[in-house]
């Protein structure tokens, strides 16, 4: 294939070719960055919480009127026992918060009582001995709480009990070189708390960027929160989620109507709400990417078609001089390849520049390198596909055109 004639033809259509190259460059820069962000978001959304999400639902309960701590304790005990006795329910516990609800309690964790800067931040889940079974979390070391270890915690109580269970991430952060089991840490105040158990994985309640470094650093505290409002986490028996949800609400109202149940939500709903913004961003970017590829393809089709019309006579002449249809198609494809390659080189520079700018200004992460060749190949194939219809039309120009006067 002679590319000399292609160059001289391009030189006569400099601006048109340049515009296509520019369009290819911008498209590549945007697509690389957008696809990268989309993939990051999808990975972010897909992270597991560590709990049996498919069978869990959460009831938010609020007592009407202001009971004493003793009254609220007995009301809570009755509720939990009632729920546990329901046929579709596997287990229940009450707590202050659950993963992905973006509200809760966190504390700095220290190795000594007077440490200046905390080693890490950790989420506190206030639970009882039923929590592990309800969430269906695997204990990898140590033991679960015993019923007698669970104490009551009123609204303004302070200080933590003697023991707690922590996540593997928590354990590794505090004791990177040895087993955390049996070790003491300082969280709230000057009193040490001993780690009696280590669980596999449990996400903190928040998903924002501020928990980036401690997304799975959580502690289970053996205390029952005695408050006006609490969350009941319920695991339904397999396949009975919907029936258990309905039965739970009805039963709770029937044993004590003086309450507000502000929500009964399957965990899937909590997850959907937590990541709605990220999901929206991924969808929005996908739409922009698709539209961008379509527009770029149409632009190539449009301009190539125009060039074919403009060069009908030359094409006819080449055909009359012995060029095959294949030669003509090749000509336009090579021309497109050259323009696209220029665009890709420029686009890679732009993509990296755009990414650096996004990283500096919007707390995004650095682009993984292979997005660049992937995007380049994508655009190259798109260009070749887009130029094919006009090239085919060019190939069908009859040699006789050469003999006609315009």
């Amino acid at each position, binding site marked *: 294939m002679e590319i000399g004639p292609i160059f001289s033809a391009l030189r006569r259509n400099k601006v048109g070719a340049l515009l296509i190259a520019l369009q290819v460059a911008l498209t590549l820069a945007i697509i690389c960055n957008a696809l990268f962000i989309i993939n990051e978001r999808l990975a972010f959304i897909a992270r597991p919480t560590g709990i049996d999400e498919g069978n869990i639902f959460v009831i938010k309960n609020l007592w009407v009127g202001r009971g004493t701590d003793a009254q609220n304790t007995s009301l809570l005990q009755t509720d939990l026992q009632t729920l546990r006795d329901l046929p579709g329910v596997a287990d229940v516990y009450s707590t202050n918060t659950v993963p992905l609800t973006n509200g809760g309690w966190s504390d700095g964790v220290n190795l000594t009582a007077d440490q200046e800067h905390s080693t890490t931040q950790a989420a506190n889940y206030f639970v009882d001995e039923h929590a592990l079974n309800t969430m269906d979390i695997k204990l990898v070391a140590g033991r679960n709480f015993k019923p007698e270890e669970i104490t009551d915690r009123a609204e303004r*109580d*302070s200080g933590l009990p003697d023991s707690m269970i922590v996540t593997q991430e928590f354990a590794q952060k505090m004791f990177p070189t040895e087993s955390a089991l049996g070790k003491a840490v300082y969280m709230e105040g000057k009193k040490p708390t001993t780690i009696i158990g280590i669980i596999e994985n449990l996400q903190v309640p928040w998903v924002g960027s501020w928990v980036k470094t401690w997304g799975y650093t959580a502690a289970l505290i053996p205390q029952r929160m005695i408050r006006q409002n609490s969350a009941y986490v319920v695991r339904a028996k397999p396949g009975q989620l919907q029936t258990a949800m309905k039965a739970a609400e009805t039963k709770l109202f029937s044993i004590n109507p003086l309450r507000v149940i502000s929500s009964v939500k399957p965990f899937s709903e909590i997850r959907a709400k937590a990541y709605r913004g990220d999901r929206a961003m991924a969808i929005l*970017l996908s739409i922009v990417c698709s539209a961008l590829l379509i527009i770029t393809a149409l632009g190539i089709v449009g301009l190539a078609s125009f060039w074919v019309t403009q060069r009908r006579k030359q094409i006819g002449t080449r055909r009359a001089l012995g060029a095959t249809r294949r030669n003509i198609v090749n000509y336009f494809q090579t021309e497109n390849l050259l323009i696209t390659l220029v665009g890709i080189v420029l686009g890679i520079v732009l993509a990296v520049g755009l990414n650096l700018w996004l990283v500096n200004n919007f707390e995004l992460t650095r682009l993984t390198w292979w997005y660049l060749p992937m995007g380049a190949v994508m655009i190259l194939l798109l260009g070749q596909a887009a130029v094919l219809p006009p090239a085919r039309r060019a190939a069908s120009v009859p040699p006789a055109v050469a003999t006609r006067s315009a």
Partner: protein
Amino acid sequence: MFSYYFSLAVRSLKRNPVITALMVAAIALGIGATMTVFTVFHVMSGDPIPSKSSRLFVPQIDNWGPKSHRDGDNDPADQLTYTDATALMRAHQGVRQAAMYAAGFSLTPENKDIKPFFVEARATYGDFFPMFETPFLFGQGWSNTEDEAKAAVVVLSKKTNDKLFAGINSVGKSINLDGRDYRVIGVLDAWEPAPRFYDVTGKTFGDTEEVFIPFTHAIEQQIGSHGNNSCNDDPKAGWDNYLVSECVWIQFWIELPSAADATRYSAWLDNYAREQQRLGRFTWEPNNRVRDVQAWMVAEKVVPNDAKVSVLLAFSFLLVCLINTIGLMLAKFLGRSGEIGLRRALGANKAALFAQCIVESGVIGLAGGLIGVALTALGLVGIRGIFPEDVAHLAHLNVGLILLTVALAVVATVLAGLYPTFRAMQVQPAWQLKSN
């Protein structure tokens, strides 16, 4: 002359329907995507209280000191302690001021047919209402007298009044919150500042509270915060210990006579911090901030980075669409060299040709813009489907936005058409006539 050019433009556009359709589609898609994303961004970055946003300020006091600062960020906490909030209230340095925090109650209606339900509440001072210019449907907010008396009075939102009292004037009636009775003193009309600027530590967009009660009363009743609470140390057991602790959980707003008074207030705040230093509470130099509404929205990152990145990508997309259009228009105008040559030979001057080409690109822009408006409307419906409700329900197509969309399309397309037009004007009439 314009109508002649217009009919020429329409005729010329009809001659190459495919290229015309491509250009219009590119403009429409670019404009539609850009305006959809921009509308959401515009709502998020809007001024929630334009009449006085430069006179309303949030003071920040560094009560945790340098030890609490990380990574070179030495901004103080974004809320105040009870100690500082009440000290600032007593000092009365502004025209109006209000400390406030979020609370929540079970509301039991007198009408037994309505089941008790949960309401979000705000405990604040009487100045809250005139300071934020909240619209009242019935009655009014409470005054200093009720603040001082720690009175059990309540201001209802329109929604709550509709639900409890079927929308009638309920001033003087009473409601029950967590077992205590409160006398209705006022009912707000619909009030939806966006962003919900007065407290962005919880939700930044969405409904305002359903009931408002005096701060002083809430503190006396030991009603805890339902919002954000941060402690740098164990507050120790009990309510009284909590109030004197260094935990921050109270938002504070002050209205000053003019924007310029911020400097004076800053100086006063530094004096206050120095006094705390003398008392031994702070062991560091004053490190305070006084920010007005817009500066506060920026500091609190109310517009998420995602929204900014989306706008950036949408405008890049529009740029690609415009480059696309330039290419196609160039092809089209140059493809008509013969006709242009003929017109020139028949006496049309360059200015006339320029006008003709500009009108033609304007017509493309107008068509693209009109379809773009439709696409924007469609896009906003889509946005409401995928985005969190609180933000998305604010984004609507209005007359201003429609005009902006069409104007942007026409201006952008005419600008894109300048180079092709310039090239068309260079056509040499004699050469064109000869070669054909």
